[in-house]
């Protein structure tokens, strides 16, 4: 059945390229996938979800999909929810509907495939499948200096993928199998190669997740990308790197990850503090959103660092997964609404914005919700995630032994919350409060139809924020 989740968007994309009504086909596919995804979350253990058919016998590679554990289920849910919202909120430029919707569906198919693949080859391959339409969308339909930006992201992510490939092959070689469940069952790999593999995986996955200092592709790419692409990439696809580290590096390379603990802590502080300060100085709303998305990756890396310090840490994994989910939903909400603002006012430059709350209170409310979520206000999903990450850093902490690198990092990282509150509230004030400008005076509020995708995402944020156990129970 999981194969259906991958095939539905691909087939719909083919149908669109073949002439089907683009938006309709995309909506049907995304809706079907959401239904299937929820069904999978309700019955993750049912055997009919998984599939495995041999593609190659030497080396033994299978087209194997399955819900290995709750983390896969949560990521799958994230992917199908954001896909539906992205398709709903997108509006293709005249004459480019085919490309627009087909690419969005292909990105979604690749992301879903990567999260449910239980074979190392397809785990990697599906992610790459999703990258190509991302590059094309930015290159063809992007805003601003789209060519240079698309070029940059292509090179950055292409190179990151290759480093990752070398790491994964090395891992498969020492583990002696390509099957992820089998690898995990065999436990940590040979200690001698762990440090090298861990380095390749941290850098490879790190480039894909925009780990400092490999982050400079992300913000311009999101600012330039069409809304569905930004929502799907920042919300879903980027989580692939974090998912990969949690799925493979933490259980299989404990001593290797431990060896890189201090550098990892320094880099993630780069994400939180350095990029945080950069975010403070953005003059455009999409710049704020893009940089904030890079910054928040730091918190998830903090949970990964806590796991690297001690794989026994039973709080860090659920914390990371919950925060990945929450961030994915909230950043998708942010990019979706920013796209609305641009369509209504014609600009995302703070100089042209202001007072938008008066003509468009609904928009202001929803965007406020997204901002609060990203700051980490209690009652919204991100809060639960961030608090859990901070608490997990001090799990098993013995005051007598003094603070380790993770604890020190955590103390510094908490300041990031202040930074994100400052830039989040400032962005909100500059956009929605103050005197109206010529561009915002005539703006209209969201219609019911335009609200649908945002309501879907905001509802999920609230539901998970109030009942985090909805997700956490899946992780047990």
């Amino acid at each position, binding site marked *: 059945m999981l194969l259906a989740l991958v095939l539905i968007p691909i087939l719909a994309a083919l149908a669109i390229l073949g002439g089907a009504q683009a938006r309709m086909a995309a909506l049907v596919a995304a809706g079907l996938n959401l239904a299937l995804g929820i069904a999978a979350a309700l019955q993750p253990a049912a055997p009919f979800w998984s599939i495995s058919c041999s*593609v*190659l*016998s*030497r*080396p*033994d590679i299978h*087209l194997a999909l399955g819900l290995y554990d709750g983390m896969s289920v949560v990521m799958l849910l994230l992917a199908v929810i954001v896909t539906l919202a992205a398709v709903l909120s997108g509006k293709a430029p005249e004459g480019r509907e085919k490309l627009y919707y087909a690419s969005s569906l292909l990105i979604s198919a690749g992301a879903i495939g990567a999260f449910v693949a239980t074979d190392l*080859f397809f785990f*990697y*391959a*599906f992610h*790459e*499948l999703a990258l*190509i339409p991302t*590059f*094309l969308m930015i*290159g*063809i339909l992007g805003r601003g200096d*789209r*060519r240079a930006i*698309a*070029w940059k992201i*292509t*090179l950055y992510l*292409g*190179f990151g993928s*290759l*480093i990752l*490939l*070398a790491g994964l*092959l*090395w891992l*498969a*070689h020492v583990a*002696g199998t390509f099957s992820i469940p089998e690898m995990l069952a065999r436990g940590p790999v040979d200690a001698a190669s762990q440090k090298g593999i861990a380095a390749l995986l941290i850098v490879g996955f790190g480039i894909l997740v925009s780990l400092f200092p490999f982050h400079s592709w992300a913000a311009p790419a999101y600012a330039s990308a069409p809304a569905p692409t930004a929502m799907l990439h920042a919300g879903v696809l980027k989580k692939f790197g974090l998912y990969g580290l949690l799925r493979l590096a933490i259980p299989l390379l404990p001593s290797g990850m431990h060896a890189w603990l201090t550098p990892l802590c320094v880099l993630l502080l780069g994400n939180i503090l350095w990029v945080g300060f950069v975010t403070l100085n953005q003059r455009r709303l999409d710049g704020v959103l893009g940089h904030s998305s890079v910054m928040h990756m730091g918190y998830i890396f903090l949970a990964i660092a806590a796991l690297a310090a001690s794989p026994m840490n039973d709080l860090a994994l659920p914390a990371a997964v919950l925060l990945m989910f929450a961030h994915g939903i909230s950043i998708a909400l942010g990019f979706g609404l920013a796209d609305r603002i641009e369509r209504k006012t014609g600009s995302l430059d703070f100089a042209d914005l202001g007072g938008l709350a008066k003509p468009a209170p609904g928009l202001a409310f929803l965007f406020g919700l997204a901002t609060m979520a990203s700051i980490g206000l209690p009652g919204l999903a991100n809060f639960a995630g961030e608090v859990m990450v901070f608490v997990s850093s001090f799990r098993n902490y013995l005051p007598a032994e003094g603070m380790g690198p993770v604890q020190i990092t955590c103390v510094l990282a908490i300041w990031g919350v202040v930074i994100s509150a400052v830039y989040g509230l400032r962005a909100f004030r500059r956009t929605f409060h103050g005197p109206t400008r010529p561009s915002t005076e005539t703006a209209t509020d969201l219609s019911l139809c335009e609200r649908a995708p945002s309501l879907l995402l905001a509802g999920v944020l609230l539901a998970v924020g109030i009942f985090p156990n909805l997700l956490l129970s899946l992780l047990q």
Partner: protein
Amino acid sequence: MPAYYLEALTVTLGIVLLMLEAFGPAHSKRHIGLIAACGLGLIFIFNLFAIGPDQARPDSAWAGWPLWNLYGYDGIARFYKGFALACTALVILMALDYRPILARFTDHPGSEAATGEYYALPVFACAGMMWMASAKDLASAFVALELVTITFYILVAFLRRNLGSLEAGVKYLILGALSTGFLVYGIAWIYGSTGTMNLQALGLKLATATEASPALLLGVGLVLVSLAFKIGAVPMHVWIPDVYQGAPTPTTAFLSVGSKAAGFVLLLRFLDPLLQVGSPVAKHVMVMLAILAGATLLVGNLAAIAQTNFKRLLAYSSISHAGFLTLALASWQTSSATAMGSVTTVSFYLATYLLMTLAAFFILAQVRLQSGSEEIDAFNGLGKRSPMLAHALTVIMAAMAGVPLTAGFWGKWFVFSLAVNQGLWWCVALATIGAAAGFYYYFKLIRAMWWVEASADAPVVQLPGISRVVVITLTLAILILGVFPAPILWLIG
């Protein structure tokens, strides 16, 4: 059917084609090409049912002929004979759609009168490649290799009223002659130090030898250098960009696929006894190969970055693919229960390489014909002008760069696996840099087609019938084999 019939039939086909050219109608030569392609297709089918002496009936006399000391027929031979036949047939089909250019630059410009040999000559080269796939003896391998090379001297310089083609011909001739010299000299050293030119006997001698004689190593080094000319590896790669650019496009495609594959099968045959378990020279030969592979990867990929001409880009890409293939040889392994060996990997890589490269050349030939330019700029805005062509070329370029779920990825994946298994880390690093550079220069085409606007006078490029069918078939094969590569492995056996 005994296997040697295949070469005999191929040469016969070539002679029949020459007769047709000499005595057939002067104004139209199209039928010669069609007959050549059909004939090669027929021999391709025969190849599937041919047998070697080990499968002969006990009463058949031919199984005992001394021919079988020079000529073998096994799984590798079958695969590479099929490879040569398929490649030649496709090249001739490409030449059919490329007729106008051939006619423009040969005698009697504008008439096809002097183009007939262009369909017959590749058939002779094909016979040589098929023999190379079966070579069991360095002397017979040398003769077969020369048959291929001499045919190529003519094919490269075929456009005798075009300066570029003539220049390419001279360059190819000089370096080809040099490499022939290396080969003969190397074979002489090997014969002098071991007393045999038969590869099987060489293997037996090496199995009992205790130390590597410097004379043998010198011979092996010389032969490797000369084969580097065939496969397009450093240090004998300098001819490639100029000759590829100057030669008629079907010849370039033939050089870059057929000739390279023939070079590799000879290399496989030659390395097998040298790298067997217990051979005292294995260690040294693997170091030589690793140096060749690393240098080729670096030169091919880094030089490709700066190219603005698509044909020249494909030339450097061909060097870079030679680097990946040599890397598979440098991390020599025999097939085991869990992993593919170097021989299978090279064969697999070449099969996917054939699909991608020939498809790219088919498109390039038509873009050259219809827009008059081979520059990457000529592809600007192709996504709007000729969407089908642009979609196909996007898939092909993604496959060349090694994007997963295309056939091109598997080849790179297997090569990386072999190198990682052997712990050739510095080569893996160079290959990673190379593959990353590959992303850059192959995506240049995708960028030109989709992101850049076309100039106002750029024509709509239409693929003629044969090219259209071939390009669609090859592109679909690239995608299907990208998910399900097993069929190629069945062919390899």
